């Protein structure tokens, strides 16, 4: 058949991990090149690929990749989750309330407790979404919308503007690794949730593709009838996966409050849940693909930040701030058709005779 070319090898890998991973890898290669060669004297290149831009990219990527992993867990089992935005916000708020009420504890204990609360709240929201979609057969997109509106309303209603969270996670430099030029300060000198997010990508990948649980999850999302026939409890898998997905979204909320900002703000997720969904689609429902896509979207957010700080452009700031959203639209319009969602997504599963 076709003569193998270097490009075809890339295409094969691309098909496996999603196109996004390759754009991200190319960006990383350029970034290393810029930072170790005299190229960094160029203002524009420094704005785009300097250490500060890369650090910001990673910080912006963490909530996106956690949200995308949340979406992957839900959708691989057949539940569409557009409520990630709301789960993130609820998790952020839960973490904030836990932090403000344990300010007198030792900092580490208080922070870890707050992360646990955020994750638990996220998981609870996930369970509610599963309950709506499975038990009450609500349309899954509407159920997700309910979660979002509910989270927005509840957090605004309960938010005490005088409460202040004291302290947040600080960076932990990994000994040795953090001294590697460029890569070290960007990847190996970060606060804990950032490390955790990167580890979760590997964990979800291994769990999804190399464990019995993962095989069954994918079966439930692709062909629930077949899964049911061999004795897999379809709806139990969906409940568990959606709750786990909610927990990851809650962790993303914890990152925003306890690691990035240090405080809660109303509506602080600012569309990250939706961009996560785009990252999930762009990454072809694969954890590593989602990481690549999230990095790309994170990079556009960093770009916005760096361009505004550096003052190198006279373009009004509103247009620079549009970048992440416009890139998201381009990404979802350019790729659908070449990516394939789980087959049974969005459909209620009923065992025969349950009517």
């Amino acid at each position, binding site marked *: 058949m076709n003569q193998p070319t270097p490009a075809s090898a890339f295409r094969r890998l691309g098909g496996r991990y999603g196109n996004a991973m390759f754009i991200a890898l190319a960006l990383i290669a350029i970034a290393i090149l810029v930072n170790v060669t005299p190229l960094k004297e160029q203002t524009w290149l420094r704005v785009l690929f300097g250490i500060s831009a890369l650090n910001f990219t990673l910080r912006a990527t963490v909530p996106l990749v956690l949200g995308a992993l949340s979406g992957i867990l839900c959708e691989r089992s057949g539940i569409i989750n557009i409520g990630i935005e709301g789960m993130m916000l609820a998790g952020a708020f839960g973490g904030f309330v836990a932090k403000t009420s344990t300010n007198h504890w030792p900092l580490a204990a208080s922070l870890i407790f707050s992360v646990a609360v955020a994750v638990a709240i996220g998981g609870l929201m996930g369970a509610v979404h599963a309950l709506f979609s499975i038990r009450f057969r609500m349309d899954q997109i509407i159920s997700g919308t309910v979660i979002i509106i509910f989270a927005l309303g509840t957090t605004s209603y309960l938010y005490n503007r005088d409460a202040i969270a004291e302290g947040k996670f600080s960076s932990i430099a990994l000994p040795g690794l953090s001294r590697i030029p460029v890569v070290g300060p960007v990847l190996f000198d970060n606060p804990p949730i950032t490390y955790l997010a990167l580890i979760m990508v590997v964990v979800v990948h291994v769990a999804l593709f190399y464990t019995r649980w993962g095989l069954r999850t994918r079966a439930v999302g692709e062909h629930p009838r077949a899964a049911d026939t061999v004795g897999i409890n379809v709806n139990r898998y969906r409940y568990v996966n959606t709750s786990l997905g909610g927990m990851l979204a809650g962790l993303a909320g914890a990152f925003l409050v306890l690691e990035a900002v240090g405080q809660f703000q109303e509506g602080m997720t600012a569309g990250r849940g939706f961009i996560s969904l785009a990252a999930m689609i762009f990454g072809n429902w694969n954890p590593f693909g989602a990481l690549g896509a999230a990095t790309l979207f994170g990079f556009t957010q960093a770009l916005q930040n760096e361009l505004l700080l550096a003052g190198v452009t006279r373009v*009004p700031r509103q247009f620079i701030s549009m970048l992440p959203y416009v890139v998201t639209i381009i990404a979802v319009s350019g790729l659908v058709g070449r990516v394939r969602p789980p087959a049974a997504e969005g459909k209620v599963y009923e065992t025969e005779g349950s009517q």
Partner: protein
Amino acid sequence: MATASTTTGFIRLLRALLIPFLALLAALLAGAVVMLLSGDDPLAAYSGLFQGAFGDGKSWARTIRKTVPFVLTGLSVALAFKVGLFNIGASGQFVIGSVFAVAVGINFDGLPAFIHLPLALVAGIAGGLLWGAIPGVLKVYTGAHEVIVTIMLNYVASLLGGWTVYAGGTQGQTPGPLWDRTAGAISETPDVLSSAQLPWLFGPPYRVHYGIFLALAAAVLIWWLIFKTPLGFEMRTVGHNMRAARYAGIRVNYTIILAMALAGGLAGLAGAIETLGLNHKFAPEFGGAVGFDGITVALLGQTHPFGVLLAAFMFGALDGGAAAMQFESGVPADIIQIIQALVLAFVAAPLIIRMIFRLRRQTHGDAGSAVSTSWSGP
């Protein structure tokens, strides 16, 4: 025979109203529980809410004023639902409609009102049409799911709207084209010329403008379009079964783009009416939540144009009474948002309502229109 058919029609109407009514009731009860749990007094809150919505002439005026945008954004979401599309983009379309209307409204000095006002309204509709058509076109030609595209376009619209009234930056950024030069550092447009302002039906202190009639007319027009025209039939067919519609020779792609554009036009009209009738200018903070509330209004109204009217009135009353409720009882007005989310939850899942109120289960006709097919296109 005529009496028999009216009776069955009446029973059908009652049955259609039952679930939304019970959903509202359940949401108010659940809202009371939330208030009790956080130490607020629900009775004081609800009596404040009722007084604020219907207590006197001014309250009624406020309720009607708040109803208008809900009718139009609700119709926008409902129309898209009929075609099987989920329009979460009404707030972006609202913003673009406002900007277009105000751009016409602050220019063309000297035009007589009977030309200027309609021109500004049409500009608002056109802005919404364009903004709504984008997700339709992308869905048809690239398969991008309208939910993600409309949400992203909401953020883009809000930034774009912000830019048109941008007061300029410190690094030589030019100010936005609609910015009021006399406003100093404030980002807003000049006032709309009086020839483009929507006249008062009842002037201050009541401040009810003629927009309510436009909203009513839009509801009738959309009802006529959906249920009485061939195009409406095609839209409903696409909404029920896209594949069958395609086999039957219906231009599915055209119908999808047209429906999204019309949905956008309705939300754009809402924006135009709010700016020409009430705010008389545009500033970045106008707009916002009306689009998301349109979803709840559309579902509470069972995606029927006249149901949307009723639901919008309910929401107008909730929103109109919220401030008075906070003032009278000290309960934060945000509780209204929680109640609205609960209404959405209950009305979208009739099974919950049937469980709570122990209603007999219907065999069919219960499920709302299914929108979540998948992320891939048509």
